[in-house]
Each structure stands twice: as C-alpha cells, then as structure tokens.
C-alpha cells in the first residue's frame, strides 16, 4: 500500500492530501462534574482513498473518536486537546454553517444499528433524497438520484424500497440504505462505526463486499471501526489498535496482524478461538482442547489516571519502568508504531490460560456415547402473533449424549433460542413434540418437571445482565440456586459455595457485590456458577459469550471446557460464531428457519461435502488470513418464519439450487454418513464435487463492483 511510508510516530505531518488527520487528540466526558479523559493523545491520519481501521475492545473509545471527528459528541463530551482536520480543514474551529457544509459535503458516517439510524416515520426514499436536497437539488431530481443511489448499493427494487418505511426492511437492507445515504454526497471521508456488528455473518459478508466495491467506485477514504480483528483485516489498509483510549499500535493491517508489536495486540490475536477455517479440527477427536490464551485483568475504569503504560496492569512483560514511565510511540519501521517500551519482545508475552489449569484426567465419569441424555423428537413450536403464525421451530430431532458438546448454529431467527427454551421447558412446544431426559419423557413446562429433572438440565443465558437479578448479591444469586437445586443448607451450603465460586474462578471478595459492580465476564461466571449449582448433567449455553470481548470470551470458553472436563457435563452450545462452535463442539447442528439443515460430527460438518447453507455460513466468516478466499454469497433476505418458502426452505437463497424440485419438495434429512445428516436434494457426491472445485461459478453477487455507473 502506498501509505506505508507515511510517518506515524508522534504528530503526523500535515499532508494536504490527507482525508483525515488527528493530532494528539484528547476527549473527555464530564461525569458528575468530573472530567473523565476517555481518549488520550490519539494521533493518526487517513490518506485519500485509504482505508484505516480502528480496532479495540468495548469501551476503548472508538465511537468517541468517530463522534469527535464529526463534532457530534454527547453534550457532556468535549475535545480537550489536539486538532482534527478533514481535508486539511480544522474541524474544531468551524462555525455552525461551515460545520454543516462540512457534514453535507465532506464526511459521512454509518453506525452500528441501521434500524435506528433511519427515521422510523419517514419513507426511506425521502430520507435518501434529503441528502441531495441539502446539496441544493430540487425534490423531483433528488428522488431520482436517490433511486439511482439505492441501485448502486445493490438494492434489487430501489423504487419499491423508496416507498417503504424503515421497519419494513431487513437489517441488511437498512444498512445498505444507510450506506447509500452516506455515500450520496460523495464524501471524501466515510466513517463506519461497527457497521456490521448487528448483522448476521452472511449479511455482514455482503455488506462488507458492498463497502469494498463502493469504496473504489467513489474513491472515498474510510475510517473503519470495529472490535472484530478479522473484519478490520479484511477491510483495511492500515490499522490502529486502541486500548483504554490510547492508540497502542499502528501500522499496515497485514503486518500488524501477522507480527504484532504490542503485547495487547498479541493478546487479542491469541484469544480468538478459531483462526484457521479450513485447517481441520482444532483439537484431537477425543483429547482436551488446547486452552485459549487470555488477557488477565480488565480495562482501567474510564477516566482513571494512569502513570505508566495503560496496559501495564495486564501485561505479562510489564516491569517497574512500564508502571512509572508512559511509553511514547516507538517508530519501528515499515510505517509502524507501538506504544510499548519492549515492543521488540511483544510476541514473547507469556500465554495466560490459567483457567484451563492442569488437564485433569477425565476419569471414570466419561460415559460418552451411551443413551442420549437429552432427546428431542419432532420438536416444533408455533408462535401466534397478531393473527400470524410463526414457525419458530419445525420438527427438530436432536440428541445430546452425556459429556459431549453439541453446537447449534444458524442465522438470527433460525430458532436456536427457541430450541433451547423448548428443551429446558421455558417455552411449551407444539402438540406432538417430545422431550426426553435421561430416558424418560418430561413435562413440556419446567415448572411441572421433577426436581431431579430441573437439576439435570440448566442453562446459561446470553445476556448476564438479564439473567442475573440486579438487586441480588452474588452470594444470594448463587446460594439460592445451591439450596433450591443442590439441596444445600447451612455450613454445607457455605462450603459448596466456596468451592463453586472457586471452580468458576470467581474470587470470594465479589460475593457481596451486585451484578452491576461486576464486569461482563465476571457476571457470566456468576451465571455459570449458578447453572452448575445443582450438578447438572446438561447445560444449555445460549450464546454465552456473544456479548463479551474476545479476550474475555476466551477466558469463559476456557472455563467451560475446564468445567466439562471435571464435571463431565454435556453442553448444548448455541452460537452464531462458527469459530466458537468449532472450537468447542463435538457435534454440530445447523438450523435454518426452524429446521435442521445439517447435523453431524464437527469435522464432517465443517469440511465439505456439507449443506450449501453450511457452506455459505462458513464462507461468510471473515478471518484474519483468508484475504483471497473465494466466498459463497447468499442472495436476498432470510425469509420470514411467518411465511416460509415452500419446498426446501433454503431454495430462495441457495447458490446451488438444482431446479424445480427445490421449490416444491422439502428434502429429507438424509443420513449420508453415519451420524451425519444433510437436508438437501443434491446427492452427496455432487455436493462433494461442487464444493471441492471451490471455484465454481461465483454465485450470486460477486465481490466485484457493480458494473453500472
């Protein structure tokens, strides 16, 4: 990339050519009349046509920087030092009119929730056209241009979409509209703040492709913000890694991710569970999983004053110097910089995975493969909503054996949570559904199940904020479960409480606290401790880490594997993150519109031949090192569960559709290999052949830019 020779260290030199320059920017929020500096001394620049990525964990100040650039900080926030220039113009010095012109002409922004970015009560077309009207166009003309623009973001029916309200469009469509709006003014700088975080992987892939395409078409500079390293790697030329409001490392994306020079970047990269998509099983079939690396500790509280290196507290390399002397940005050549005294040794930072502890021998409790513990037969759930019937789950058969981990994947709305709730008895299934636990059928509702059954099957919810009563102390949360599920009381309860919190690595000093005083990871540990209070046989985990940062996620995943090994518990692990599932699961179940599309041992499902849907899911996942992998893209929207397609539910989006039959006849779940079933009309051999070629007709929207101009 041409930007490699740009100086990065210290104050970047002003380049007339730069689309964006930040110079020693500090941003503070005043909270309870105290200034909290959440962005400190951040400098970077984005050259014309360049794509710059800003990556970092939640709360590190990414959005704050983005908003500071467009001067849209919250009322209590202000840029307390430094300068920001767009196209060489000092943003902070503009008056209202100039600022408005800047926003209208030079910079646009796209953010996380497309649904909220659009005005719910104004037609989509009007909102897009407004951009042109601001530029002085009359309404008629503006509407025409808006339609044109919607075409450019590859909306198939621009005219139709113009006449709709935002709530009538799907997330992916909305984000396209927002992008269309952002690009309509042909800005020199486009800021994207986690533009795909709220989207499904399949949709995310599409939107990312679209952005890549449009970027070259419009020759716009990008400031791309994400917590997802892989997305940044895919989208950006250069990257800046933020930690606690400081830019700790900067450089060409490929270089930074290949050989990070800051212990934080190193730690982040190591905690990603799955970095090799096609590299086969990440662990031995029967052996323990290698624990993931984690970063100990947590972010300093916003606004805390730190003397030395901000990362020192969590850094395996830190010494006295790090704690007292704040490191400057060390130029390390190749256009790279690192804010670490010991940047040369960064990669030697010790791997911390103490959660895993010493692998204990599985012991005699390993009774995998016997009679399934949990068994669902033709489990269906129909929701009735405002006269509509929504098939949340449709004829699902599923077994979970003792001690195994079954991964459940699928796009949003595919019925994963519904399946979990049916199994555990929080949602009563339709007539004819059967739930068997330990060989005997159980009541469809949890409250009617026997105490033993309740104990045997527990759940860890996705969102610990919702799952933990915020008015109860950690002690109360766990001990109540111990007494209700474990039947403990008195001293025995206290003893068990101590051993339980110890086994989830929750220091006892947290016991008197309320959930609000704990970080996300700690909260999830409390939730896990609670689920294990009654010595369950199966624990359902519904996306237990999706709300967590990667480094925290790693620790939780380590904890779960550790617990499984020691307690011989089975997991039904739900996730939309194939990496996580891949890391944990022995067997995988792929859901689509409430139906099982594929099911089988992890290795078999993740490697071809597999269902075209699985194939698409896999190829949608951005990874750090697959820049040139060919992708299968899914066309169109996920159909509504209220009105599922006839025939194969996937046929509307299937890149490998073979014809009539897909539209009319729903395929059986064929057990092609022992324990591996695929619901597809295409014979296994054909699938294998097609997917082996892998260069087959690039289906649907390819990665190239649209031809129209």
């Amino acid at each position, binding site marked *: 990339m041409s930007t490699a020779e740009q100086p990065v260290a210290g104050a970047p030199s002003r380049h007339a050519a730069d689309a964006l320059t930040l110079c020693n920017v500090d941003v503070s929020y005043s909270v*309870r009349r105290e200034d909290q500096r959440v962005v400190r001394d951040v400098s970077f620049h984005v050259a014309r046509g360049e794509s710059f990525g800003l990556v970092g964990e939640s709360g590190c100040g990414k959005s704050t920087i983005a908003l500071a650039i467009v001067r849209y900080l919250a009322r209590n926030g202000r840029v307390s030092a430094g300068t920001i220039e767009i196209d060489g113009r000092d943003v902070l010095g503009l008056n209202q009119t100039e600022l408005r012109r800047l926003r209208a002409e030079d910079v646009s922004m796209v953010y996380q929730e497309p649904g909220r970015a659009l005005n719910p009560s104004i037609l989509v077309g009007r909102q897009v056209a407004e951009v042109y009207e601001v530029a002085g166009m009359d309404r008629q003309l503006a509407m025409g241009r808006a339609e044109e623009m919607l075409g450019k973001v590859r909306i198939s029916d621009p005219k139709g979409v113009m006449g709709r309200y935002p709530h009538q469009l799907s997330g992916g469509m909305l984000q396209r509209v927002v992008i269309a709006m952002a690009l309509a003014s042909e800005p020199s700088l486009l800021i994207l703040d986690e533009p795909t975080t709220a989207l499904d992987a399949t949709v995310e892939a599409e939107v990312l492709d679209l952005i890549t395409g449009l970027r070259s078409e419009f020759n716009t500079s990008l400031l791309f913000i994400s917590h997802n390293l892989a997305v940044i790697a895919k989208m950006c030329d250069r990257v800046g890694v933020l930690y606690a409001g400081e830019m700790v490392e900067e450089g060409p994306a490929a270089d930074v991710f290949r050989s990070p020079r800051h212990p934080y970047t190193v730690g982040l990269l190591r905690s990603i569970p799955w970095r090799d998509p096609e590299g086969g099983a990440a662990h031995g079939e029967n052996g323990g999983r290698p624990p993931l690396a*984690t*970063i*100990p*500790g*947590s972010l*300093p*509280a*916003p*606004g*805390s004053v730190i003397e030395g290196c901000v990362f020192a507290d*969590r850094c*395996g390399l830190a010494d006295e110097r790090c704690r007292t002397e704040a490191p400057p940005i060390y130029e390390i050549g190749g256009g790279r910089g690192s804010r670490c005294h010991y940047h040369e040794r960064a990669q030697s930072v*010790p791997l*911390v*995975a*103490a*959660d895993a502890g010493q692998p204990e021998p599985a012991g005699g409790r390993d009774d995998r493969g016997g009679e399934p513990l949990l068994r669902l037969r033709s489990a269906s759930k129909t929701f009735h909503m405002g006269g509509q019937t929504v098939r949340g789950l449709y004829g699902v058969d599923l077994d979970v054996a003792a001690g195994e981990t079954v991964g459940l994947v699928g796009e949003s709305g595919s019925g994963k949570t519904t399946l979990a709730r049916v199994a*555990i*008895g*929080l949602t009563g299934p339709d007539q004819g559904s059967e739930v068997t636990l330990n060989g005997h059928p159980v009541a469809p509702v*949890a*409250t009617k199940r026997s*105490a033993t059954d*309740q104990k045997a099957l*527990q*759940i860890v*919810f*996705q*969102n610990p904020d*919702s*799952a*933990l*009563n*915020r*008015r*109860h102390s950690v002690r109360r949360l766990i001990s*109540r*479960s111990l007494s*209700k*599920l474990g039947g403990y009381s008195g001293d025995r309860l206290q003893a068990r409480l101590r051993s339980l919190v110890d086994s989830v*690595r*929750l*220091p006892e000093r*947290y016991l008197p*606290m*309320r959930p*609000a*005083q*704990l*970080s996300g*990871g*700690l909260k999830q*540990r409390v939730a896990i401790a*609670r689920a294990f*209070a*009654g010595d369950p046989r199966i624990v359902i985990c519904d996306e237990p880490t999706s709300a967590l940062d990667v480094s*925290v996620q790693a*620790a939780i995943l380590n904890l779960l594997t550790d617990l499984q090994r020691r307690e011989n518990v089975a997991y039904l692990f739900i996730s939309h993150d194939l990496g996580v599932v891949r890391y944990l699961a022995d067997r995988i179940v792929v859901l689509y519109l409430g139906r099982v599309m594929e099911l089988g041992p992890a290795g078999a499902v993740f490697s071809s031949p597999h269902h075209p849907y699985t194939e698409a899911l896999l190829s949608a996942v951005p990874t750090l090192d697959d820049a040139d992998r060919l992708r299968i893209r899914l066309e169109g929207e996920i159909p509504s569960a209220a009105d599922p397609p006839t025939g194969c539910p996937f046929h509307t989006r299937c890149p490998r559709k073979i014809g009539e039959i897909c539209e009319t006849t729903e395929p059986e779940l064929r057990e092609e290999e022992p324990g591996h079933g695929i619901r597809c009309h295409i014979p296994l051999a054909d699938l294998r052949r097609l997917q082996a070629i892998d260069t087959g007709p690039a289906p649907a929207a390819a990665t190239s830019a649209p031809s129209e101009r």
Partner: protein
Amino acid sequence: MSIGAVPVESAAAVSAGQADLRGQVLRDLVRQKSFIAGAVILGFWILAAIFGSAVVKDPSAQNLLLINQAPSGSHWFGTDSLGRDMFARVITGSRDILITAPLATLLGTVMGTILGLVMGYFRGIVDDVVGRVVEAFLALPLVVTGILGIVALGASNTTLIIVIGIVFTPLIARTVRAAVLLERELDYVSAAKLRGEGSLYIMFAEILPNVLAPIMVEFTVRLGYAVFTIVTLSFLGFGIPPPSPDWGLDISNNFPQVTAGYWWEVLFDALAVASLVIGVNMIANSIESALDAS
C-alpha cells in the same frame, strides 16, 4: 512463567469504588437545588404542624366581635367569618393533611404494587380480568369515589385515606404492571422458574426489588397528588370535618366570602396548599432524576 495467576477481570467500577448505589442516589439527591428547596418547604410545614400551635394563637378561638377582619398587625392574615385568626389556622392547617396524605399514598402504593405485580406477572386471563376492573376504576370520576366512600364510611381521616388509596391503586397498578411486564421477560425470571421457585417468590423476591425504583418515584409523585386530592375533596365537602383547622375545609367554607372582598380568608390557605404540593413535587422530581441518573 505465568503472571496473573487468577486471570480474572477486576471489578468494573473502580472509580465509583464499591460505593453503594443507594449512597450515590442520595448524594445526587442532596446535590439538587430543587430537592433542597422542596425539603425546606416540606420541613417547614411539618414543623408548623408539630410545633405551630405552641407558637401561634389558638386556631379555633372565635371572636364574634372581630369577624372578617382584613390582615393587620394583630392578625397577620386577617380573621375569618367567626373571628378566628387566619394566620394560626394556616400555620396549623397542615396537621391532618400531613398524616393522611402519606398514609393514603402508602395504602395506594401497597395495593397498587400487589395488583400490578399480579397482573404483570401472570398476564393472560388474570391480567385481562383485573385489567378491566382497573380500567373501570380509572374511568370512575374522583367525585364518585369520593362521595361513595365518604358517604358510606362517614367523613373521617380514615375514610379519606381509604378513598384516596382506592383512587391511587389502579394508577400505581398500571405503572407497576408495565414495569413488571418488562421485568418478567428478563432471563432471571426464567432462571428462577428453572430452579423451581414458586410464583410468590418470583413476584416478591425476584421482580419486586427490581421495580422498586418506579414504585418509589410513583410514591413521591402520588404524595403530591394526595395533598391535591385531599384539598379537592375537602373543598367539595367530603373532607375532614370541622373544627380542626384544615386548608381545604377553610377554603371551602370561606370561598363564598370571596365575592364580598374577604380574600384573605382563602388566599393564604390556597398559597399554603400550593407551597406544600410544590415542595412535595420538587422532592418527587429530584428523586426521579436521581434514580434516572444511576
């Protein structure tokens, strides 16, 4: 070489320390000017109610020779149609209201909370049936409830408390229900069901603590309205019976004198009422914003 043997995130809120949330709310509260102002006003009337009679003239002492006297040095707020000192009556006129208003509000809050919890938690048929009744009560004009209650039970402070309690119950139930509807969808309720907790436990031990904030706000807001309602009912003749000095009653009795030009017989009472409701309301708002902030 492993550092950080316990790889655990430290408590998130370091700067806030382990400070109790309640402490924070309290600190936020006393920092607000409107809270201080409200507290001063309310405090004044409470003091006046307790110690006022020791300081001022006897509020019931009549002087039929000095009736309808305009404000003067000896009678700061004038005298009423029975020659009673209006200043004394205004100062001591808060006595009953300061007892009945909080009790009535408390009654309404407790009943409303129970009802709201039950409706919100069980939903379905319970909610439908109770909801209809609640809706019906909401459509019932205050006069009707007032007249029915007071005529049936006789005019007394207890009756007033019951009537206002009944009037407030559906209002509070509605707020609580809405909060409970949100809470019951949270997974901690599911978690409680999954460990076999009964409905009562879930409602009162799990959900109730989480809806206390809106209940508390509702309580303080309603407190102001209790004063409002008591004065209104007194004015309509459903209030506290004479001769105890009472703002609403005095206003009601002396209102016909207004056209004769004896404005002092109602104005000071009216202003006293206004100051009390505004004071209570300022406190209510401060509590609301302090709770919001945390």
